[in-house]
């Protein structure tokens, strides 16, 4: 049974390893994946622990459905205190690692301490060994994975690794698996590096019994048909996420030149059709890859067509790489995006943070806050493709004063650079925003302000807000499973109803992350995709665990509150620009300059925005300061945290 998968506690300082089962009452409260990780993090770290230090806990997990006969249970979740933000660190990636770890007997790892020398973990059929990694330290993301396979003499081993960026303690270094599956944002690869942990390798041949296999197989077929019937997934399965680029950019939702414009001009060269065209010769007519068990297959495959990396196989680029290395830096050229994407994948660093930091530095250079002396002679101007590529290298290897300074993360860098550089940093809670511009979409702006891991779209974004769906359709979605009779608006420029939508999405995405499935399988980009009413059955047929949609909603609320408790413990205060639920002043002060008629000339109205936050706090059960009310914690059964159940 998947419910028999265990937790392993690994102390890298002492080499002690302890394994424990996960009690059923813990499963019912937190399910698994991100939700249970949040509980474990709160219980296994102390207030104010150094994110770079041995006391930080690195938690790795699969969801409760991982490796069962459900669709796309490929996601690996990684959590720790973030070196980038000093608050909650959390990353989620596809690929094949979490299922392999589940077949090897484990759903959660809690890694503390620091190894004396570089090591990696090898998890194999219920056993965990700490192995010498001196021979693979310094290797790129892919080279490290293949070297581990060769060393273990098993080509079926799946590994999650940190790249050179993690070793060099770049504050936003990723955990990576496969070619480009990235546990991005908040620097979980940096935490691996800080622990001298190069990789975790897994190989398993242990059975996972399915509770009701015949029915589970049939239900999965229907579930997959449901998912692949959505137009948005069919398009993703042909072009990958870059299909979004054309629409959002022409509409005016892309950050360009850091935050000066909300649209990137002459960007056709970055369109997925164009990238397909220039890469077609190398990959043939079919060029999409899928994560474990997924029929959306949204990962594009290509070989870099020219330049110093010509012929290298790579996956992506995702929509986020288009924004990071094309839009924000105003270098809208296919080759720059492809090479930038390739480098961050090989180095293991977050594409969004990298692009955003470079664009920020470019704006500071334009303003004279950074000078040619600071850049060691590099002409760090917008539109300079070579400078973008050069800066990726300098940050990863901490070359020069600027590369080293930026690698510390936005807030620390702004304190070192000084002047008013902080005013230009488009971040929330210390993490930079992705490449989207939310000034015309108050719902989306609210999402990034409140996201638990900093400015991020995968925590609570009501992305379907952009489709102008009729109100009855919205009401059906947003009233499942909890009735909602407040206002809802089909207009993306409106403020009413958005707090509930953001609150609903926050719980929806948490539930998905606890189950261990992908967000393309729920109400994220597609309004018709499965949500709370579909999950009880897939959970029951695979694990035997009986839960109602309302109970899964409660789990999601509880887990989100655990994340909030962690952030509050580590210093989150409502209006703090560096550690709070507040946006950069430019959202309120600088109107958008480009885009469609309902986008251009817009700012977020601050008084209305603050009222939205108040309303969101009420739904969540927080007081005006953003602290949980005593009755909320009691209702959710987490009034005595840390409770050390596991």
């Amino acid at each position: 049974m998947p419910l028999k998968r265990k937790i392993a506690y690994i102390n890298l300082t002492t080499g002690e390893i302890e394994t424990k089962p996960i009690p059923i009452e813990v499963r019912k409260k937190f399910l698994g994946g991100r939700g249970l990780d949040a509980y474990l993090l709160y219980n296994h770290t102390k207030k104010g622990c150094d994110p770079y230090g041995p006391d930080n806990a690195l938690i790795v997990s699969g969801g409760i459905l991982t490796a069962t006969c459900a669709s796309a249970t490929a996601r690996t979740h990684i959590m720790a205190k973030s070196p980038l933000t000093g608050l909650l660190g959390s990353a989620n990636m596809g690929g094949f690692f979490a299922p392999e770890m589940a077949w090897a007997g484990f759903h959660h790892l809690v890694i503390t301490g620091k190894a004396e020398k570089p090591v990696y973990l090898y998890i194999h059929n219920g056993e965990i060994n700490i192995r010498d990694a001196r021979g693979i330290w310094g290797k790129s993301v892919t080279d490290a994975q293949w070297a581990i396979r060769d060393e273990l003499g098993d080509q079926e081993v799946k590994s999650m690794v940190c790249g050179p960026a993690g070793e060099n303690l770049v504050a936003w270094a990723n955990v990576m698996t496969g070619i480009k599956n990235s546990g991005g944002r908040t620097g979980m690869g940096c935490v691996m590096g800080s622990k001298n942990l190069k990789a975790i390798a897994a190989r398993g041949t242990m059975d996972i019994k399915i509770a009701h296999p015949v029915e589970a197989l049939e239900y999965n077929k229907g579930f997959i048909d449901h998912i692949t019937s959505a137009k948005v997934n069919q398009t993703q399965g042909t072009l990958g996420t870059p299909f979004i680029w054309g629409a959002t950019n022409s509409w005016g939702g892309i950050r360009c030149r850091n935050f000066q414009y909300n649209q990137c001009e002459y960007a056709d060269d970055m369109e997925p059709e164009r990238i397909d065209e220039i890469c077609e010769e190398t990959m043939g007519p079919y060029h999409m890859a899928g994560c474990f068990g997924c029929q959306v297959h949204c990962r594009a495959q290509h070989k870099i067509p020219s330049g110093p990396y010509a012929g290298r196989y790579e996956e992506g680029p995702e929509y986020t790489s288009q924004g990071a290395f094309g839009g924000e830096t105003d270098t809208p050229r296919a080759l720059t995006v492809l090479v930038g994407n390739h480098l961050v994948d090989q180095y293991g660093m977050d594409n969004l943070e990298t692009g955003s930091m470079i664009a920020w530095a470019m704006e500071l250079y334009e303003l004279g806050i950074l000078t040619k002396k600071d850049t060691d002679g590099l002409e760090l101007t917008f539109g300079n493709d070579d400078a973008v590529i050069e800066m990726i290298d300098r940050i990863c290897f901490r070359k020069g004063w600027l590369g080293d300074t930026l690698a510390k993360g936005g807030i620390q860098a702004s304190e070192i650079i000084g002047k008013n550089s902080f005013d230009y940093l488009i971040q929330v809670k210390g993490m930079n925003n992705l490449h989207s511009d939310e000034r015309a979409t108050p719902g989306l702006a609210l999402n990034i302000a409140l996201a638990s891991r900093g400015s991020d779209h995968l925590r609570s974004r009501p992305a379907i807000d952009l489709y102008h769906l009729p109100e009855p359709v919205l009401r059906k979605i947003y009233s499942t499973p909890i009735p909602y009779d407040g206002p809802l608006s089909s207009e993306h420029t409106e403020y009413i109803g958005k707090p509930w939508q953001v609150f609903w999405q926050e719980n929806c995405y948490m539930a998905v992350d606890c189950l261990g499935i992908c967000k393309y399988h729920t109400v994220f980009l597609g309004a018709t995709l499965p949500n709370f009413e579909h999950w009880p059955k897939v959970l029951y047929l695979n694990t035997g665990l009986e839960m109602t949609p309302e109970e899964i909603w409660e789990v999601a609320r509880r887990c989100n509150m655990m994340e909030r408790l962690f952030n509050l413990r580590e210093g989150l205060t409502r209006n703090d620009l560096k550690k709070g639920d507040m946006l950069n002043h430019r959202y309120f002060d600088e109107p958008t300059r480009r885009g469609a008629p309902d986008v251009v000339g817009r700012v977020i109205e601050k008084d209305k925005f603050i009222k939205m936050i108040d309303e969101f706090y009420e739904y969540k059960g927080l007081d005006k300061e953003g602290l949980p009310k005593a009755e909320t914690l009691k209702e959710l059964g987490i009034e005595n945290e840390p409770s050390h159940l596991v």
Partner: protein
Amino acid sequence: MSKALYINYEKCTGCRLCELVCAVKHDGISNPTRSRIRVMKWEMEGLYIPMSCQQCQDAPCMNACPVKALSRDEELGRVVHDYDICIGCRTCVSVCPFGAMSFNAIDRKVIKCDLCEGDPQCVRFCDRKAVDFMSPDDVSIDKKREAAGRLSKAGKQASALVAEL
């Protein structure tokens, strides 16, 4: 004529759903080592190739089996394995040129594709139809068309080159 499993690896996305549903269908368990179909990967080339029993006409496994546990089922066009006769010597595993005869180390028995009694689950679940089930007459017709398309494209490019010269 009975249908055959037809694998077009160029269409494979490497998701391994076929492995999952094969194991669940046959054993009620999720475990790729129980699957009769396995996807072999060359990740650095983006190349994924599903491998399964070809139900050979002159099957080495059948020829080599010392106790005749393997036989041909003409109706479904497959090679079938009889566990009542099998002695578990794994000779079939050794001689299969595709590695499609597997040994399930948990239950200690050989396993092979049985075409799910005519409704192969790998085919049913594969959205891309990288694994397909079709009449042997049709197996190569799509490939012929694709190859012909490439030839025609090459021909056009060649004539364009000649024209440039």
